[in-house]
């Protein structure tokens, strides 16, 4: 049984349809990456999956008593709020000093319990967030743009750590990102999101898909915005036929109707 699934999920905010017809499942032990440009609704999707955003259509199912380890995007700690790393690890459930130190050591920030959160570097902060997420003994880790502000090697190291954790504990991982290459190698499945799921499949298949190239461009240095417009236009007319959807059958599945393919 899958840990987390969305079926026909739609989210509206006021007059804006942020997400529509999103189908998504995460099975135990799987690494699933959601990739998409800014404004594609990635964070809204994560908020909906953890229950902070009310769906306007479709439904979300979580395995009973699902333990989620969540690493938020660019969390800002209010300057008025004093918070040591050690105290933060005990939110909301108290953990022992030994557990806290073990989690910090596992994520490579041992001995930092006494530091203020506001004094950590970007990479240290992400590792502390990950340590806290691990203390919940999660069945699934949800990571929303976890490597923002990290340099290439920091990013690579962070994703390597995620892979190791999956290997050690069998935790499933749902990763949201817009940085591509480092992420994709680690993923079992990639979903390309731009308000809806444009395409889905193994990393190699997705990076070859025209929908993906339309969103992100074919190579380095291409201007994203140019392709965004083109892409949106093409997909506004989903009903008009499939000129963008005619790949060989071994290619990725295409949203929004890929749904139940195993």
């Amino acid at each position, binding site marked *: 049984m899958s840990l987390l699934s969305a079926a026909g999920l739609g989210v509206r905010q006021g007059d804006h349809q942020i997400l529509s017809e999103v189908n998504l499942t995460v099975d135990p032990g799987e690494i699933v990456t959601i990739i998409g440009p800014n404004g594609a609704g990635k964070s809204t999707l*994560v*908020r909906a999956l*953890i*229950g*902070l955003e009310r769906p306007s259509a479709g439904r979300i199912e979580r395995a009973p008593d699902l333990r*989620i*380890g*969540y690493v*938020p995007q660019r*969390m800002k*700690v*209010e300057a*008025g*709020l*004093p*918070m*040591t790393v050690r*105290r*933060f690890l*005990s*939110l*909301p*459930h*108290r953990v022992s000093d030994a557990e806290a130190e073990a989690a910090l050591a596992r994520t490579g920030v041992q001995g930092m319990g*006494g*530091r*203020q959160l*506001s*004094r950590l570097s970007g990479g240290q902060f992400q590792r502390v967030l990950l340590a806290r997420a691990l203390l*919940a003994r999660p069945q699934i880790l*949800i990571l*929303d743009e976890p490597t923002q502000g990290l340099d290439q090697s920091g990013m690579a190291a962070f994703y390597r750590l995620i892979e190791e954790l999956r290997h050690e504990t069998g935790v499933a991982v749902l990763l949201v990102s817009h940085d591509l290459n480092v992420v994709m190698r680690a993923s079992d499945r990639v979903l390309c999101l731009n308000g809806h799921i444009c395409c889905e499949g193994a990393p190699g298949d997705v990076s070859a898909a025209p929908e993906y190239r339309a969103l992100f461009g074919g190579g380095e240095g291409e201007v994203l915005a140019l392709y965004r417009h083109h892409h949106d236009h093409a997909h506004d007319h989903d009903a008009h036929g499939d000129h963008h959807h005619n790949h060989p059958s071994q290619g990725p599945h295409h949203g929004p109707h890929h749904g139940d393919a195993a």
Partner: protein
Amino acid sequence: MIEAFVLRAALAGVGLSLATGLLGSFVVWRRMAYFGDATSHAAILGVALSFAFGLPLYAGILAVVVAVALIVAGLSGRGHQSDTILGVMAHSALALGLVAVSFLPSVRGDLSSYLFGDILAVGWRDVALIWGGCIAVAGLILWRWDGLVTATVNEELAQASGIRPDRERLVLTLALAVTVALSIKVVGALLIAALLIIPAAAARAFSATPERMAVLAVLIGAGAALGGVAASLSFDTPAGPSVVAVAFLAFLLSLLRRADH
């Protein structure tokens, strides 16, 4: 030999700081200063309502303050310009309250005691209400402490841990409304927000954890209440503003020490 009115004033001030210190810390952490203003200014409207309809004073204030707090929390939760909405509500609530009071000659004479409080005039009944109410507020906050702090750090993080951020926000809103209603006789509608913010702001510099900051805020608030009452007696200054002035002094002293990292 302490006179009874001084003892009552000291007890009322110390009791109140129990709630304002804990709650004020959240007001600082969540940037709710304007929200505190809007809520406390509405208390004047509550005073007018109580007198107009012959209700018990605290009941009228509590009803209006809870209503305004819920409305403001709902509005600012939704809109993007919550700062503006809160500003509009804070000042309009005060203006409407003052207009309403002008129709009630019986209150007009006492208006300044509702605006600035009169801690030296509190009765034993007030002291009992303040202690009862503040212990209830403090108990509520301590009971939900870890959830409240988690939701304050980050709402998504809280939600993923099974905490409902909207529920925690409601707890704080209601606790704030009760505290405002209890404070009016002590520091008055205009200075309640000061009692929430200043001790907590002063405590920040000496704190590495939220718990320490909250406890220090309570202690600083209690010290300010005692110091303010003493100053008011010695120098014949108005009591409510004196309490706030002493708290401000503590804040100035805290600036000498840089915040723990």
